């Protein structure tokens, strides 16, 4: 094993960092994985709020036929930047932020393998985000080519503005950030585990971060290459994608989706990991089928590299049956995970505190998104629903119903560890119910709209289409979603100040992050319990549930 035996840490480890300086300079120069994790999470939530505000304008515009709020150009910029912001600057960075904070803690390491690289990775991400969004400040506005940036529309001839160039450069920079972050996670997980923490004892969350990092290494370089080619096409006439000069627009789609579909799994696997951490703890049982989860995660990772052209069934340029087969098979390991989650809850003692509540919300919503995904994997059905609101509904059930619900589950579960204070349960439950009602009001009707002919990415529709009632419903739902997120932010700020102290282990956790203080010291652990199973903290307290059977948070200190 790559773990170093000299790193025996049954007693305190000498701090590897300077004494915390506090203040702005410290945050700007920190190489502590926990602080970088916090920076990632705060920035990602910032981009979530920003991109969410863009989508509120989109929903407001679509509430009625005709253009009331923005023009066509602005509308196209809004949905482009909404998608770009959510995918590249919110969901993936949130996974990286959670991984940054919790992977070292969960494997008993004092930091990531390359702390300085880690800091560099974060600042590249911020630079990429600012460059991408700075398109709004240019005369021509931000990129208005869709987050998929299909050529030739994204070429100079059709989109001459600087917004597209900034979009390309920003995403290139953030792509490099993702690659470096993936290298760091892989090195950390393979090389920094505490003695006893074998690969088949690391928490499932770490497995998911590992497989996600592998996917990033396989796919982000392809995306970077595609963006570099697009940039060359735009700036010096590379003719890669220009059909008038012998280039091929379909090539762009292949390169983009070779990245783009694994990207979907990059955005969901870490959050599969999150709910696989939470469900056992709140069911008072071990995870059911640990190796099944690992196996399924590896299968999903592998298969996800072979499904990309199901985004191109209608192009007439790909082998539809092949990509239909791979795309449908990938539902199988996902189905296995569902049954394992259910078996984990089966005959457990389930307490529905906020982390579990959001995880359950994830199960139901992702179930719907997964099922509609199988419809889309069938080429004849895709011939009808491709590029309609059905697809918009589908991927929001996956990315919002899936990832975002799991992200909130992770926040309620882990913020007490980060801050030392519990979030307010009442506000958390209000947040949950507003979120799930608003979410379904917004996105469920979109299935129906898509089936009935409403195409994607349209700034306007005619009154005769009959789509307005469901669009009004969706817009009202978006308002409820905004209220839900506001409740979360209020809960966060209030709990930071006045929240109940969390203690080391408020939930009766299993993995090593619960063996240290909340927040952990700069070097992470004063004492690491011995690791004999995938539940070291559970073993360490003699198999007793940490909290009372009613699930209320227990005492203040563990160990």
């Amino acid at each position, binding site marked *: 094993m790559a773990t170093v035996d000299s790193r025996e840490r049954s007693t305190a480890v000498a701090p590897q960092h300077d004494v915390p300086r506090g203040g702005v300079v410290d945050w700007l120069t920190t190489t502590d994985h926990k602080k970088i994790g916090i920076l990632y999470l705060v920035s990602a939530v910032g981009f979530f709020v920003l991109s969410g505000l863009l989508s509120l304008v989109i929903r407001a515009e679509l509430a009625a036929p005709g253009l009331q709020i923005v023009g*066509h150009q602005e509308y*196209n910029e809004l949905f482009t930047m909404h998608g770009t912001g959510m995918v590249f600057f919110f969901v993936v960075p949130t996974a990286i932020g959670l991984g940054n904070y919790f992977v070292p803690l969960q494997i008993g390491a004092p930091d990531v393998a390359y702390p300085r690289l880690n800091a560099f990775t974060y600042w590249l991400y911020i630079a990429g985000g600012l460059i991408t969004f700075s398109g709004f400040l240019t005369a021509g506005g931000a990129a*208005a080519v869709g987050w998929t940036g*299909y050529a*030739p*529309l994204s070429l100079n001839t*059709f*989109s001459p503005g600087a917004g597209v160039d900034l979009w390309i450069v920003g995403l290139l920079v953030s792509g490099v950030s993702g690659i470096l972050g993936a290298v760091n996670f892989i090195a950390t997980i393979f090389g920094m585990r505490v003695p006893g923490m074998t690969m088949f004892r690391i928490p499932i969350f770490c497995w998911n971060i590992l497989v996600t990092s592998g996917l990033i290494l396989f796919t982000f370089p392809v995306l970077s290459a595609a963006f570099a080619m697009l940039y060359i096409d735009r700036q010096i006439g590379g003719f890669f994608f220009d*059909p*008038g000069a012998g280039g091929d*627009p*379909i090539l762009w789609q292949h390169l983009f989706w070779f990245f783009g579909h694994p990207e979907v799994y990059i955005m969901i696997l870490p959050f599969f990991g999150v709910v696989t951490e939470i469900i056992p703890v709140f*069911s*008072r049982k*071990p995870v*059911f*089928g640990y190796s099944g989860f690992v196996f399924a995660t590896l299968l999903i990772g592998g298969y996800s590299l072979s499904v990309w052209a199901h985004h191109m069934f*209608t*192009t*007439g*340029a790909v082998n539809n*049956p092949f990509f*239909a087969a791979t795309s*449908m098979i990938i*539902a*199988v390991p996902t*189905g*296995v995970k569902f*049954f394992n989650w259910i078996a984990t*809850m089966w*005959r*457990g*003692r*389930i307490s529905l505190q906020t982390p579990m509540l959001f995880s*359950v919300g994830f199960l139901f919503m992702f*179930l*719907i998104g997964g099922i509609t995904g*199988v419809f889309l994997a*069938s*080429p*004849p*059905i895709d*011939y*009808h629903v*491709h*590029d309609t609101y059905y697809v918009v509904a589908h991927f929001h059930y996956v990315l919002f119903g899936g990832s975002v619900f799991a992200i909130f589950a992770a926040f309620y579960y882990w913020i007490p560890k980060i801050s030392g204070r519990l979030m307010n349960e009442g506000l958390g439950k209000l947040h949950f119910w507003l979120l799930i009602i608003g979410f379904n009001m917004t996105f469920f009707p979109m299935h*129906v709209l898509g*089936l*009935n*002919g409403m*195409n*994607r*990415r*349209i*700034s306007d529709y005619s009154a005769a*289409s009959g789509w307005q009632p469901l669009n009004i419903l969706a817009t009202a739902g978006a308002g409820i979603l905004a209220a839900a997120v506001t409740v979360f932010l209020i809960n966060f700020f209030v709990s930071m100040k006045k929240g109940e102290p969390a203690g080391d282990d408020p939930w009766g956790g299993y993995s090593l992050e619960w063996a240290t203080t909340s927040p952990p010291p700069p070097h992470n652990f004063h004492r690491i319990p011995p690791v004999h199973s995938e539940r070291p903290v559970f073993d360490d307290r003699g*198999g007793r549930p940490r909290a*009372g*059977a*009613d699930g209320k948070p227990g005492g203040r200190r563990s160990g």
Partner: protein
Amino acid sequence: MSTKQRPILAAACVAATLSACVPEPADVQGESVERLYNFFFIVAAVVFVLVAGLITWSLVRYRAKPGDELPKQFDRNLKLELTWFAIPLATVVVLFVLSAQVLGEVNAESTNPSVTVGVEGFQWGWRFIYEGSGVVVIGDATERPEIVLPVGQPLTFNLESADVVHSFWVPRFLIKRDMVPGQQNSLSLTISEAGVYRGVCTEFCGLLHSKMNFVLRAVSPSQFEGWLDEQRTIDGNG
């Protein structure tokens, strides 16, 4: 699908999911798509009820009560795990085979179409060229084009783009195909029902994408011939 079954099935779908059905197809190929969609829908409904039911059952039955002991700590059962690996696998194999069959049906090209229409998409409009008759219909975002086609005859659309990627879709046909610059695509179908249908571009194509629409009027073959003659006269006079 017979017309008798359709209302019943439609009603069932409405009850199940607030009308998450495809619209009634207006072409022969669309009927195959509809059958496939409905089969998928039934499978999906069964899967949803099963999985959501198991989750709900667990939440209700195994909710923690005050004074509960630690439950039995079981964490594996290879037979069960293999079973629930096999069930989804078998399901998707069936779904794949059916999809492949229907794919063959809807992709079949008319060997001898009665009418061949060249369709060229451009930002943000359409140019329809009726092959053999010299009739051309053009329209754009300000004035959407209206084309006429015969019911019950095999049609072929040859799809091209003059600039960026567009996509040709009449929602009631349940089939769409992209129009890619530098590439020839074609779409063959037979309209089964007379009516006036909306057509749209479904691939985002820039500023006025939302305005890139057309109208398709499906009429009897004799009415179609009459319309063609009329167009020729107009073109001739013009």
